């Protein structure tokens, strides 16, 4: 990988990614993280070559307050999915320090991998100052992982709407809480947080508090009118519990989704959110308001990716 070497042909790299090769996936992730203008065409070419990832794959986001047990849970799920024969790619996103620009990427240490098993891959990513709890490179990284592995698990820290951009890049959003902290309940009730697709209460080994947390959440979800939202209690300490039930709940949610439609809708919402972050309410008004923007997005070709859609919105705004 010396800097003097000629760049690897993108087609070969994409083939390596599709074959699930550890080294190729890592190189592809290095590429999509590359911020230099000179790398943009190669990144675009790679993403085109990878298509939208495995069409029958499943991307699941795990979000929740710090320290509730997200990484431990992702580790347990990774193990269970491997046992069921799926390959798994994990993207663990951690915040960067505002002051130094550096980051401590501490999720990997909690996620069990085996050197001899290339079917479970973990990559850590720093947010590098991006708003919304997601790194700039996260959407493209998810696409790389989704082209290589059957299941993609994305971990981000966050509570409440402003921090859950993860929903744009995954098919299923899991909100993870631990017993004894009423945060999630408050956020749900106050409407700060949208009802996620699946709710998980970790540390079920703590007993009664865990059961109470689960009952409270179930009541809140029912009160908000989303009867279907599963609430699963899990424990990751021996003997583990609830992991299989959670995998089942995830598979069930996925089976109920029109993946193509959901991903298309996510891309469009993501594009609008990105546009709004960059240009503010003034920009949105220039589009004729949110409704009009959504309508315009709805008319675009389904194959367009997020950057292309943002570009289109920008052109709309300057024309309109």
């Amino acid at each position, binding site marked *: 990988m010396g800097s*003097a070497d000629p760049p690897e042909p993108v087609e070969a790299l994409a083939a390596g990614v599709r074959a699930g090769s*550890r080294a190729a*996936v890592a*190189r592809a992730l290095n590429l999509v993280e590359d*911020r230099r203008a000179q790398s943009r065409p190669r990144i675009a070419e790679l993403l085109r070559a990878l298509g939208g990832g495995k069409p029958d794959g499943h991307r699941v986001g795990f979000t929740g307050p710090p320290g509730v047990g997200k990484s431990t849970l992702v580790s347990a799920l990774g193990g269970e999915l491997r046992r069921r024969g799926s390959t798994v790619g994990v993207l663990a996103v951690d915040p960067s320090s505002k002051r130094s620009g*550096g*980051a*401590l990427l501490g999720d990997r240490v909690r996620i069990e*991998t085996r050197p001899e098993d290339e079917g479970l891959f973990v990559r850590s990513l*720093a947010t590098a100052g991006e708003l919304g709890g997601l790194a700039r490179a996260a959407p493209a990284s998810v696409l790389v992982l989704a082209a290589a592995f059957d299941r993609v698990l994305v971990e981000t820290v966050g509570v409440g709407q402003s921090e859950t951009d993860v929903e744009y890049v995954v098919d299923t959003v899991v909100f993870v809480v631990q017993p004894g902290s009423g945060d999630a309940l408050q956020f749900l009730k106050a409407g700060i947080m949208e009802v996620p697709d699946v709710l998980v209460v970790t540390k079920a080994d703590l007993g009664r508090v865990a059961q109470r947390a689960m009952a409270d959440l179930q009541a809140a979800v029912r009160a908000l009118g989303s009867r279907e939202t599963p609430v699963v209690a899990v424990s990751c300490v021996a003997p583990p519990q609830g992991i299989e039930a959670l995998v089942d709940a995830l598979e069930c949610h996925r089976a109920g989704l029109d993946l193509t439609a959901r991903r298309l809708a996510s891309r469009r919402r993501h594009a609008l959110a990105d546009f709004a972050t960059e240009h503010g309410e003034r920009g949105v008004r220039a589009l004729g308001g949110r409704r009009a923007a959504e309508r315009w997005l709805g008319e675009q070709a389904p194959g367009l990716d997020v950057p292309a859609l943002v570009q289109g919105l920008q052109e709309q705004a300057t024309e309109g």
Partner: protein
Amino acid sequence: MIERAVPERPWIMRTYSGHSSAQASNSLYRANLAKGQTGLSIAFDLPTQLGYDPDHRLARGEVGKVGVPVSHLGDMRALMDGIPLETMNTSMTINATAPWLFALYIALAEERGVGARALQGTTQNDIVKEYLSRGTYIFPPAQSLKLTSDTIVYAVRNVPSWNPINFCSYHLQEAGATPVQEIAYTLGTCIAVLDAVRAAGKIEDMTATFGRLSFFVNAGMRFVEEVCKLRAFALLWERLGRDRYGVTDPKALRFRYGVQVNSLGLTAAQPENNVYRILLETLGVTLSKDVRARAVQLPAWNEALGLPRPWDQQWSLRCQQVLAYETDLLEYDDIFEGSRVVAEKTRSIAGAAWGEVEQVERLGGAVACVQSGYIKERLVESNALRISQIEQGTRKVVGVNCYTETAPSPLLASPDGGAGAILTVDPAAEAAQVDAVRAWRKKRDEGAVRRTLDALRAGVGRGENVMPLSIAAAKAGVTTGEWGAALRDVLGEFRAPTGVGGATIGRDESIEPVRAKVRALGERLGRNVKLLIGKPGLDGHSNGAEQIALRARDAGFEVVYQGIRVTPAQLAQSAVEEGVHLVGLSVLSGSHNDLVPEVLDALRKAGVTNVPVVVGGIIPEADARALEARGVARVYTPKDFALGSIMDDLAELVMRAHGLS
């Protein structure tokens, strides 16, 4: 009365030691006892501390390094050969596998017809500080605490002169704790353990239990403050016993402790100065009669350079003997009685410490605070502060950040011009242990082994006391690795929070130029500079690696912190998957010559090229050169205390690797 008619009996004098094999350690112990040492302090090697046999994959390079391997009853026999168990006072630095080593010791006593009731000594057995500092834990906290309380309940009933636990403030100080934190978090552990013991043993009267509890403390250079710390400790311990556990017998409430004076603060630069440091630190734990140590073990002057030789350890033992036998220290009552200064300082430490004890209780107790990372984060912060004070010179360390000019030291000139003033463990020792444990397994009654292991698994699963089950297994010839594997099956394994994520460090302007360099480098590379930091091998002393990780983040690097006990193959896998620009390894156990080349090979095999590898640890000069010849880009030793310049160095290495300098 001021002067005592008869001088007080001195404390028990020990030397923390053990290496290579049970036989070699036995002759070392006998030699030490002949020199006037009055107790034993057994250092076990890392595989023994973590429940692995010498032929386990993870034991490679670690057998007999930081202590003696004890794999079965035969090893325990050899270790204590010719040493009378009924009169010896034996301290074992053993934690996760404490019930097992205690069981081997009891089994040996019964075999010799001594009987458990006669045994005196200590099992360290404080698992909470393993999660916080020392790293040799195996099982999750709740499960570990159950084993701890089993041992205590068993000892109080059946081995009444044994100290089944040494609550360790020692390692908290090593991890950075201030005196206040040292007391507070240790007492937090006491509460967690004692509540568990009271519940598990259904004990109504805690007097007998309290009388068997002791502490293992650390003593640093600020010895006036240390005296006050110990007085505050004693005060709060008594209060805890009275108020929370209803103990009233003053004898049971007495604060009893053993000590090893601070070895982390010993310097590699001008190491002869450490002799003064050791003596002054010893004063802190001996001057005040009311809180005088019951047992003292001293590090050696050259601890920061490598493994001390028998002569180095003898020099430290002589320090104790000169103090106890030549001075008039033991002829007086407490010489601080009535000192306003000492009383005031003691009160202030005790007040602050109790406040923090209450804070830990509010947050759910010590175990919850280990799990949440609260305590670890506070320790990492304090340590970061201490290190930056040394770096900036506001905390003086003679020979390190001031008065650094020196004539060449004759103590360091070795006559052979080779390895220098340290001990090297014979690399053949490991192979011999591997053969020995295999031979042992061939000679035993397999039926008895299987039966006792099944009983152990089933019994522990049902929540029975682990001690009788372990003693039966010890007698049947079960090995340390088999015991460990059986319990891992039933109890599961654990990884403790690293504390580096949540710790915050103070603003430090001097890092700004490095930050700018790292930022610019990131722009040129296209993405931020990413480091992988981890500790291969079994050693769990992660304080150094944590500080490097923390400072690296502060310098603007993205740091994948992989923590302790990672295999070379895992490190290689992480380096590939994470796309890092540099790999940093920390090895303190002396097994760098085995582990580091293995990591280099694993990286090469995984196709990782152009990624510089740096190593930090207690690495003798000659070994450092050899590692560099093998392809290590840089070796850092305790001499490189300025983390800021290490950060600059790391950036330079990455630049050079990418042809950008």
